[in-house]
């Protein structure tokens, strides 16, 4: 892209310091600037993430030895429910699209903001409202929901805990997700800078585009389903509860029609982030741009048709069993294509192992393990055995935490200097990453083994033969948390004392690196003209030729 048109001689006031008609905190929570909204999401998301980590830590501590360790079974059941609800609805789903999508999508396509800035602010407000409702449900009489994040009927219709408030919370957050998706799809269609054709879009944008469609199309289904559960509980209408003449299997279908595509809402943007980071730190163009772009679409498409693989043990027809098994196997192919292209992008690059790159490479390794164990579960005969065991728990933590979670950390380290104009201590960040990787595998790998040996999930207590795996796993949770604390402390210190980061500390070629750090209110003084693809690193090749 053309450098000279975009470097500003006199830097404008950054979006962080700019004055608006509101003062103090109102200048943030009433701002329609996509960057401020992105930061609002970042702060709220990290608060919820800390809550989720705390609950996870308590669960692991309870499981360090058989029998009661710190809490009663009822508390444990609420812990894993709230851990799941918070981590899924308040951290992983909004984590990348709402935080980094909001902040960078308009910049990456050369726009001044998203298509509907006020709708964008409304999305954040809905998100916060839902989050607050979820928190309220913890403290009202009746106690926090104890159904698991899946709210399976009939149990969720019968338990006396605060299921309804938790459901309303999920419902409200769902709207936030739908509106964000709608906003992004429209933005990508309408607001691309002149010359930015579809195949000149950065790959993070492609992944947000695929994600946006899934958000818009799939989320309403879970919204309606949760409403139906509320109607069933309040008015005793038999929809899902068999004792009222309903069908519990129907609930599971409706729930997973959304919640399976939702895991692709979670993973696709992370894949997009990895596709941004690798070319920058390998300092070369990405390998197989179109294949990575189309594989995002293929994942969104196939991923929407595989929901019943969560239900291989409920007693579906053989036809349904083999169709869903086959489709699930097929969805592995676009994921594999991405991994191969990322690895190929390292070939003959000029690789610098900065912190974002370390997180990105850890993502590939961990996501690969998550993917392979996912393939195992797609196999019908094998699924029957490992279904609802800790094997599944390990698998989705490898994809959701080892994948998306590490994707969030990669994005945070990659874009931090752009968002705040400061650079963190890179050495400390590398140590933190290494500790987290070690802790991560120690925490989750033993659960694969225990699961194959028959350790069911959502168990407060367990048989003595599983002790060793739980013990190692709990130790792993401590290591992981130490890594997390070092990582966040390092970033918080950098906010206050970090050295000034230039506009392009990593030598990136996408548009966000051509503007000042932190960006000005409307990003670009003049909307750029796009002439080349997003990962054009040919100048390094040429420059080096000249030196020789």
């Amino acid at each position, binding site marked *: 892209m053309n450098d000279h048109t975009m470097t500003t001689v006199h830097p404008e006031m950054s979006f962080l310091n700019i004055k608006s008609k509101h003062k103090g905190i109102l200048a943030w929570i009433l701002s329609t600037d996509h960057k401020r909204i992105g930061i609002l999401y970042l702060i709220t998301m990290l608060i919820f993430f800390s809550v989720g980590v705390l609950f996870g830590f308590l669960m692991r501590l309870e499981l360090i030895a058989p029998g009661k360790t710190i809490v009663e*079974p009822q508390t444990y*059941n609420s812990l894993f429910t709230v851990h799941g609800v918070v981590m899924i609805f308040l951290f992983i789903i909004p984590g990348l699209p709402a935080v980094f999508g909001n902040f960078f999508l308009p910049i990456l396509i050369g726009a001044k903001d998203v298509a509907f800035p006020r709708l964008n602010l409304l999305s954040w407000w809905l998100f916060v409202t839902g989050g607050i409702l979820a928190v309220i449900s913890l403290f009202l009489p009746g106690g926090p929901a104890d159904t698991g994040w899946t709210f*399976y009927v*009939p*149990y969720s219709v*019968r338990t006396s805990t605060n299921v309804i408030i938790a459901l309303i919370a999920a419902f409200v957050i769902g709207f936030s997700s739908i509106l964000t998706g709608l906003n992004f799809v429209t933005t990508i269609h309408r607001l691309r800078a002149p010359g930015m054709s579809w195949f000149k879009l950065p790959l993070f944008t492609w992944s947000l585009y695929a994600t946006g469609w899934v958000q818009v199309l799939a989320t309403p289904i879970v919204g309606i389903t949760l409403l139906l559960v509320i109607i069933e509980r309040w008015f005793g209408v038999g929809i899902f509860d*068999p004792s009222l003449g309903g069908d*519990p*299997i129907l609930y599971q279908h409706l729930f997973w029609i959304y919640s399976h595509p939702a895991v692709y809402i979670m993973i696709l943007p992370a894949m997009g982030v990895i596709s941004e980071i690798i070319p920058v730190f*390998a300092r*070369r163009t*990405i*390998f*197989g*741009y179109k294949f990575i772009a189309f594989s995002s679409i293929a994942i969104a498409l196939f991923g929407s048709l595989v929901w019943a693989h969560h239900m291989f*043990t*409920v*007693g579906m027809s*053989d036809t349904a069993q*083999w169709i869903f*098994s*086959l489709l699930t*196997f097929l969805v592995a*192919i676009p994921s*594999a294509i991405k991994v*191969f292209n990322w*690895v*190929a992008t*390292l*070939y*003959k*690059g000029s*690789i*610098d192992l900065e912190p974002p790159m370390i997180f990105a*490479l850890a993502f*590939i*390794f961990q996501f*690969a393990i998550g993917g*392979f164990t996912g*393939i*195992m579960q*797609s*196999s019908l*005969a*094998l*699924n*029957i*055995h490992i*279904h*609802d*065991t800790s094997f599944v728990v390990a698998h989705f933590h490898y994809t959701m935490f080892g994948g998306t979670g590490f994707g969030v950390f990669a994005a945070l380290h990659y874009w931090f200097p752009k968002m705040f104009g400061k650079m963190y201590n890179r050495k400390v960040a590398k140590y933190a990453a290494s500790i987290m990787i070690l802790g991560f595998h120690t925490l989750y790998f033993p659960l694969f*083994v225990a699961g*194959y*040996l*028959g350790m069911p999930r*959502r168990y407060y207590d367990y*048989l003595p033969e599983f002790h060793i795996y739980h013990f190692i796993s709990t130790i792993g949770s401590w290591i992981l948390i130490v890594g997390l604390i070092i990582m966040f402390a390092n970033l918080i210190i950098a906010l206050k004392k970090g050295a000034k980061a230039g506009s392009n500390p990593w030598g990136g070629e996408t548009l966000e690196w051509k503007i000042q750090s932190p960006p000005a209110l409307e990003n670009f003084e003049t909307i750029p003209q796009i002439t080349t693809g997003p990962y054009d690193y*040919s100048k*390094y*090749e040429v420059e080096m030729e000249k030196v020789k």
Partner: protein
Amino acid sequence: MFSGGSNFIKDVDGVFLFILAISLVLLLLITFLMVFFVIKYNRKKNPQPKNISGNIWLEVLWTVIPTVLVLGMFYYGWVGYKKMKDVPSNAMIVKVTAQMWLWEFFYSNGLKTDTLYVPQNKAVKAELSSKDVNHSFYIPAFRIKKDVIPLKDNYLWFIADQVGSYDIACAEYCGLKHSYMYSKVVVMPEDEFNNWFTEASKKIIQKDSSNVNKTFVK
């Protein structure tokens, strides 16, 4: 890892090892290449990158090979699963009832137990029903599992081929004492089983005659 005994062990563990082997090869390949490239093309040693924007044949290769592999895995898993569905007609039927948080087993003559006793090397069909919420009938040592859902006629079957006692777990979350919803399946040689069955049934008949109104349902 591969202890316990039923007619499904070979299929399930077979599929597992098959997919595990392929996965390990691919994972090692990916990891090796990542590490190798990171070292070989480190910026200090290799300051000059080469921009390669793609290769259509490589893309075809790494689309076709995974496709063939997953189709193979799919087929293998389907064949193993099909066996779990086809119950032999001579299978002994036991009705299994799940409720928060215990299992009950009913034999054809009305005998009710809290432990599942089965003869060795004989097909047993478990017909599952739930009195309250969803449960899941899981015998890890036999590699079988089926959800137990109110008003849904689910079943599973197995041939236990090794004498012994194995855990039955509930695998679908069902509330407060979900993790304590364990029972045992006791596999006995066929004649021993027959003796036990006759003895246990006698007691029932005595009890029944002394207390006529208390009949065992099903």
